[in-house]
């Protein structure tokens, strides 16, 4: 499987990568099923709460409200953090974020950093940056650690190693951690990872986590994990860092509670994550830093439709339900965040100009989303923006204007469709298949009728 997910000239378009992924049909079925199980768990958890749809509406409203008063809440947050003894830093982009983190670590001569899952640090490419400066970074979330050992990026935002089978993890651990050859028992492998990580936790000089929510009126950040690794990290060394996007802010504890009720349910079907920790100040003699990152988010806010993608709470629900993601895998999207939300927030950076079209616009994601991010509308909007900017994918660039003229002309449409129907009826399918592209490659061609409906109507209901 390809691990190259970076955008840039030369990276294959989504359809091409998806086609490669689809070659191993048994794996596609397994991948699709594993993710659909999460969707089913989510359905069961959501249906257990009578007010589920109200919670979604509340979640949506409160995120919209916060986004429209972002400056005010961020200022309030900073003020309260400072009062709590937290140091606050602002980064306009990924590079600045990485420099700030490095400076904090370098000042304390940190050699080893334990990190708990954060898509933002992935977005900023923090790990390679720190490693190039001689700092060892250990991802402590089990799934993250697996892909880190495999030197791969995450393929899902909540279950980052979902593309790997347990046998493959066993092989990897045998290689890197010295577990028994051929071992694939999840319990055995988890125990081995735990022992390995414990040693890292104890020897780390600093800890870093992502942020699920930042509570403005308390100057507090909320971190949700299932393994307790964030807490283990943050509580052992004296130096703790938290990276957050400006979109993570919520006004108060009540609003955080609304989101906590939907986040885990929509992600994995759990009532709540095992650990939902609130950090509101450094430990005694310790230091706590929060880095607040923009990295293109303010630009997104300028476009009313794109702005709604910042309501996202990164539950991963839209990936699990997406019929395209389940069958094309996370690495086909040319962006750190795959699936519907990945298209919504990443399409501007997609040099292949292909990911907005990696979607059937079925709308399932928009209905699954706990904060009602209108994903299908946003994706559709991205297509329009790309078209406007003259960045249609190659095929479309050449055929769309023709289709436009063709469809607007009855004579042209009628004549050529009549030719096509005749061809479909009299030529053997095998002869037509090579000419009918992707359709005929996978499907039988339509059985063509003798004449059009209009001809029938005029003849039988003669106007």
């Amino acid at each position, binding site marked *: 499987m390809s691990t190259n997910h970076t955008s840039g000239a030369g990276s294959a378009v989504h359809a091409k990568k998806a086609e490669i992924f689809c070659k191993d049909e048994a794996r596609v079925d397994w991948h699709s099923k594993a993710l659909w199980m999460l969707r089913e768990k989510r359905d069961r958890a959501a249906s257990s709460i009578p007010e*589920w749809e109200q919670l979604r509406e509340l979640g949506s409203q409160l995120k919209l409200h916060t986004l429209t008063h972002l400056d005010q809440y961020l200022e309030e947050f900073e003020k309260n953090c400072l009062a709590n003894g937290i140091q606050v830093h602002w980064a306009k982009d990924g590079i600045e974020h990485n420099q700030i983190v490095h400076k904090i670590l370098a000042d304390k001569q940190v050699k080893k950093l334990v990190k708990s899952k954060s898509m933002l640090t992935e977005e900023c490419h923090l790990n390679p940056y720190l490693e190039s400066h001689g700092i060892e970074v250990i991802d402590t979330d089990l799934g993250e650690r697996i892909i880190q050992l495999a030197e791969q990026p995450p393929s899902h935002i909540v279950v980052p190693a979902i593309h790997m089978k347990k046998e493959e993890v066993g092989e990897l651990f045998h290689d890197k951690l010295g577990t028994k050859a051929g071992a694939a028992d999840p319990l055995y492998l988890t125990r081995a990872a735990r022992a390995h990580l414990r040693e890292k936790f104890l020897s780390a000089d600093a800890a870093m986590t992502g942020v699920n929510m930042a509570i403005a009126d308390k100057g507090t950040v909320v971190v949700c994990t299932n393994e307790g690794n964030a807490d283990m990290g943050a509580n052992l060394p004296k130096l703790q860092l938290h990276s957050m996007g400006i979109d993570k802010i919520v006004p108060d504890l009540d609003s955080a509670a609304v989101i906590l009720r939907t986040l885990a349910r929509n992600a994995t079907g759990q009532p709540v994550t095992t650990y939902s920790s609130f950090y509101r100040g450094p430990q005694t003699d310790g230091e706590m830093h929060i880095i607040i990152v923009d990295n293109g988010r303010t630009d997104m806010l300028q476009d009313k439709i794109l702005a709604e993608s910042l309501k996202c709470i990164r539950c991963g629900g839209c990936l699990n339900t997406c*019929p395209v993601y389940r069958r094309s895998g996370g690495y086909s999207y040319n962006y750190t965040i795959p699936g519907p939300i990945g298209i919504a927030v990443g399409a501007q950076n997609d040099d292949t100009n292909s990911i907005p*079209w990696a979607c*059937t616009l079925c709308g399932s994601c928009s209905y699954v989303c706990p904060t009602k991010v209108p994903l299908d509308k946003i994706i559709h909007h991205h297509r329009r923006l790309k078209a406007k900017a003259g960045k*249609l994918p190659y095929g479309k660039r050449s055929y769309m204007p023709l289709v436009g003229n063709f469809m*607007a002309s*009855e004579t042209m449409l009628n004549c050529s469709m009549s030719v096509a129907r005749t061809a479909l009826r009299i030529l053997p399918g095998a002869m037509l298949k090579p000419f009918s592209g992707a359709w005929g490659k996978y499907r039988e*061609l339509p059985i063509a009728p003798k004449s059009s409906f209009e001809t029938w109507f005029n003849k039988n209901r003669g106007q």
Partner: protein
Amino acid sequence: MKIALFIPCLVNQMMPHVGIATVELLEKLGHQVILPKGQTCCGQPMTNSGCFDEAKKTTLKLLNAFKGVECDAIVCPAASCLVAAKENFHEFDTSPEAQAVIDKLYELTEFLHDVAPIKAFNKPFNHKISLQLSCHGIRMLDLATPSEQMGPRTNKVEAVLKAIPSIEIVYPGRYDECCGFGGTFAVDEGAVSAKMGKDKAQAHAETGAKYAVGFDPSCLLHLDGMMRRQKLPIETLHIAQVINAAL
């Protein structure tokens, strides 16, 4: 009622039997049916691709075919095209005349459920059918509550069909997952589209139904191609054909 038919290009050119069944069933129900001239395409293949400039001429041509036509309703036997027509008309023409056309637009199931319900069916339909709940119909037209949504559930498609004597209605696994057609998606993303179509066709076949029945001709065309390629013992039927057979 006097009904103007909106027959999308796909039905006109490739699936005339869907149009014919629609005319016949509406007439059996006592409606007068007319076919305004000059309809080609709603512009969906273009607008769905982001190409709004290319869609304008086509969309306005279709809209003009209905402007000023005297009728009580404009009925279309294709959910996805209907949704696109509504949205595109609105996008390119904000005049009161355009709005008057938009206000009269109904998808066939929607019309038979909300506007002019069928009082009684005359004939039985002695088959098991597997319902194809296509995305745009359920998620953009509220023909049925999508599986992602919690709370009270509605299903207009089933409500219309279940009054047919001796019909048996079942659903495929993952019943409202997209079939993968997605307009130009079927061509641009051939491999994923095909895998989705194959899974959907198999899920319908696994119900043991004789027919997969739906309200969206494009999905049915896609599924039909898949079913025949996979040699599955099931065929597609449009909802209009089932209703027409039972009247």
